[in-house]
């Protein structure tokens, strides 16, 4: 077996052209799944016996938190691949993952604060889970800021990748925070190792929303990476040909 596929995967041009074909379909499926999950969760699922209807925020809060964390892995792994194999596309993925992760972390924190008011009686506490999620937001913002802190793209990419890798120490802290410091935030509702502590009528729309968020994340990451590819490859022949082939510009 040759390593050709690996090198092709690292080619920005190949990524751009392949994603042109698949992105519309992916975006369409993501939108359909998200709409299905949202309508199901907001309008069809029964209300919670203790929390009433405020629990419906879970259908955004939990999927957004999942992807805020999964997105950090993707950003850190992309940074590591860039550092080890010097693959430029990998750095472009890392840079693109930062604002998406920041946005999802913001959604997780914001919906959590809104949910906290009717449930805990407060928008914010310096609970371990909440604080570590806030640190996650700052890590994302840090990687974003580093991209603009250097004149050299290469130096910015390396610095971003190192911060992303150092920041992974925060990830297990976030996961374990609800068990280590049991204060206000409840432990995980869904675990891979056991059945969900939720009724199926409530759990199924949540599952749909989580899948929808994963699909949305993939589509958003490809979209951001594509415009980053154009930005960095603007001097190359293939980008010029691409622009010239778009008749409306002339």
């Amino acid at each position: 077996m040759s390593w050709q596929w690996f090198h092709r995967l690292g080619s920005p041009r190949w990524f751009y052209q392949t994603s042109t074909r698949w992105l519309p379909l992916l975006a369409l499926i993501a939108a359909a799944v998200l709409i299905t999950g949202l309508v199901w969760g907001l309008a069809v699922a029964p209300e919670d016996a203790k929390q009433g209807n405020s629990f419906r925020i879970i259908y955004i809060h939990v999927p957004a938190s999942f992807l805020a964390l999964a997105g950090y892995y993707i950003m850190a792994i992309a940074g590591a691949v860039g550092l080890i194999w010097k693959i430029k596309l990998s750095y472009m993925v890392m840079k693109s993952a930062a604002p998406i992760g920041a946005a999802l972390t913001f959604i997780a924190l914001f919906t959590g604060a809104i949910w906290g008011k009717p449930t805990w009686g407060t928008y914010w506490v310096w609970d371990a889970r909440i604080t570590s999620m806030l640190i996650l937001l700052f890590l994302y913002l840090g990687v974003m800021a580093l991209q603009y802190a250097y004149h050299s793209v290469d130096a910015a990419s390396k610095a971003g990748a190192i911060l992303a890798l150092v920041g992974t120490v925060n990830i297990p802290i976030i996961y374990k925070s609800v068990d280590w410091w049991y204060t206000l935030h409840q432990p995980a509702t869904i675990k891979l190792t056991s059945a969900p502590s939720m009724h199926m009528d409530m759990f199924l729309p949540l599952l749909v929303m989580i899948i929808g968020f994963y699909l949305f994340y993939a589509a958003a990451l490809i979209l951001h990476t594509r415009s980053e590819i154009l930005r960095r490859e603007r001097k190359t022949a293939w980008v010029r040909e691409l622009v010239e082939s778009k008749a409306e510009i002339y």
Partner: protein
Amino acid sequence: MYFSSFQDLLTMDGHGVYVWLAVIVSLVVLAWLVVAPLLSRRILLKDIARDILRERARQSTPTDNHGEV
């Protein structure tokens, strides 16, 4: 539908404000994640097209174009 009327769906027994605020803000942020790269891509494509036109103009009139493109 779980709610008996559309009005009930909006108010959610007093929790409607929280739920809908969370939903709307989240959807706005998600929409921004889609719109932002599309906008920057558009600006970039125009930028690159301008570069190409400028280079062509320079090639066709190599002597003096009075600094115009």
